């Protein structure tokens, strides 16, 4: 294959700079020693990170986001793992339709989902509650949990299972001692990807969150709507750090290219 020419490399350099520029700028401004938005030209300061401590709303929102992400991804897996095993192993009527239904939250605009959930939970008397947020997030992260579990279940060596069955293992023991350990990397990556999606969601959550159940992206969004100051950049820098950590874990466990490029082996 031919190498990239100088023009191609210039294009590539500019492209990469533009891609990372907004993220780098947010992280740099977060370290400004000034009282206004500016790049830290004379020295770095942590004053805006300390300032977060004076805004309990951000701290509270962070814990809401963390709990919501962890819990909803876990609940999604409780539903997704059996469904993935069924779709990976059996050819049954309605299989393709089921897979399409389970992946459909990817296709439906989040603003429409937010409205539908707001309408539904308000008339169910759960408007603005943490329970409503959990259920809604289970739906939106479900496709991610399902896709990675499905990929693991499809690629699994089933002779080990057969050996266990021939030795008398069955039902729950078979699942807990043989199947689950084998698909665990996929399940953990599915959890991590689902967590990131839940942790970052704004569009749907902004419809459901009420004071007290505001997640971090919602709190940040409402803050930015009023004014943009260095405080929100230091909060953003923390969010970026959390996501980066999850990203690195994902890359270690599973390979980021597989996570992102995996179209979900629904057998097509």
């Amino acid at each position, binding site marked *: 294959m031919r190498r990239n020419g100088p023009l191609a490399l210039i294009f590539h350099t500019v492209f990469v700079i533009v891609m990372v520029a907004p993220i780098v700028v947010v992280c740099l401004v977060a370290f400004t020693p000034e009282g206004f938005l500016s790049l830290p030209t004379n020295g770095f300061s942590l004053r805006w990170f300390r300032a977060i401590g004076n805004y309990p709303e951000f701290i509270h929102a962070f814990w809401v986001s963390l709990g919501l992400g962890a819990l909803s991804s876990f609940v999604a897996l409780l539903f997704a793992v059996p469904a993935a095993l069924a779709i990976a192993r059996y050819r049954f009527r309605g299989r393709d339709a089921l897979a399409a239904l389970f992946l459909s939250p990817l296709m439906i605009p989040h603003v429409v989902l937010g409205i*539908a959930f707001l309408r539904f939970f308000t008339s169910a008397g759960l408007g603005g509650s943490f329970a409503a947020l959990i259920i809604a997030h289970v739906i939106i992260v479900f496709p991610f949990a399902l896709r990675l579990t499905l990929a693991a279940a499809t690629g699994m060596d089933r002779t080990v299972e057969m050996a266990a069955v021939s030795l008398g293992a069955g039902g729950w023991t078979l699942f807990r001692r043989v199947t689950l350990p084998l698909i665990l990397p996929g399940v953990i990556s599915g959890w991590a990807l689902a967590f990131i999606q839940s942790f970052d969601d704004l569009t749907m959550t902004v419809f459901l969150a009420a004071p007290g159940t505001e997640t971090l992206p919602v709190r940040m969004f409402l803050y930015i709507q009023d004014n943009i100051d260095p405080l929100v950049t230091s909060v953003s820098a923390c969010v970026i750090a959390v996501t980066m950590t999850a990203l690195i874990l994902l890359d270690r466990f599973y390979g980021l290219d597989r996570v992102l490029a995996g179209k979900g082996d629904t057998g097509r």
Partner: protein
Amino acid sequence: MSAAAEERSARAPWALTAPALMLFVGVLLIPLAMTVMLSFYDWGQYKGIEPVFILKNWREIATDPYYAEMFWRTFRIAILTTLLTALLGAPEAYILNRMSGRWKSFFLLVILGPLLISVVARTLGWALLFGGNNGLVNKLLMSLGAIRSPIPFMFTETGMVVALAHVMMPFMVLSVWAALQRLDPQIENAAMSLGAGPVTIIRRIIMPQIMPGVLSGAIIVFSLSASAFATPAIIGGRRLKVAATLAYDEFLNTLNWPLGAAVATLLLVALVLIVVGSNALIERRYAEVFR
């Protein structure tokens, strides 16, 4: 297999998927149906929402030019964003694919990683870069001599398109990248040995083969841009409304839920029709190419 075992294996997939199926019917399909119904309800400043079946909201959207203009703006921004990501993302994916192993995976991580970083944080970055008439982007463009007077980016469609294109770019690169993985590098060498120049190779060999990737990336970028919320809300401000931000306003500020539900339903239906339609077109067009 015994009859009992056969029956068990016929029932097993349904037993395994039943919990998830019930969850999806209960808290996805029913709420969506309720939203469509809501769009036919009546609403008044003092009486609130009235559960009747009228076409008032739909008539308002069809006749008031405000909504036509808003939807046209939404789709114009989505189309421009899609074009921008295709024009820049496709060449970048091609360049990326020709890099050697370690650099390739490093830059792939750098370009695709932002996909998982909060949209609010990424858009905030653009708001900082644009920031008024002496924002960094304008300063840079002016010092390079590309422009004479600063371009207004904040609260304009230009700014929305630039920021949205950045948010959506990973989807396009990913899609073209996937198409490039299926491409046989020997074809390029064969074309070269037959005397084709670089321009001819790109136009006659590479382009036709990555076109399905570009088009499927375009569908993803278009539908996500047309329903985007955070970026238009932050960069566009309160006046420059798109479908998602308008629906948000109707629900949480005006409290006219039936009208907001109608806007959301229309957006959903329009997107489903466009996506399904263009998918069918692409499949028909390229089924012949690959036969």
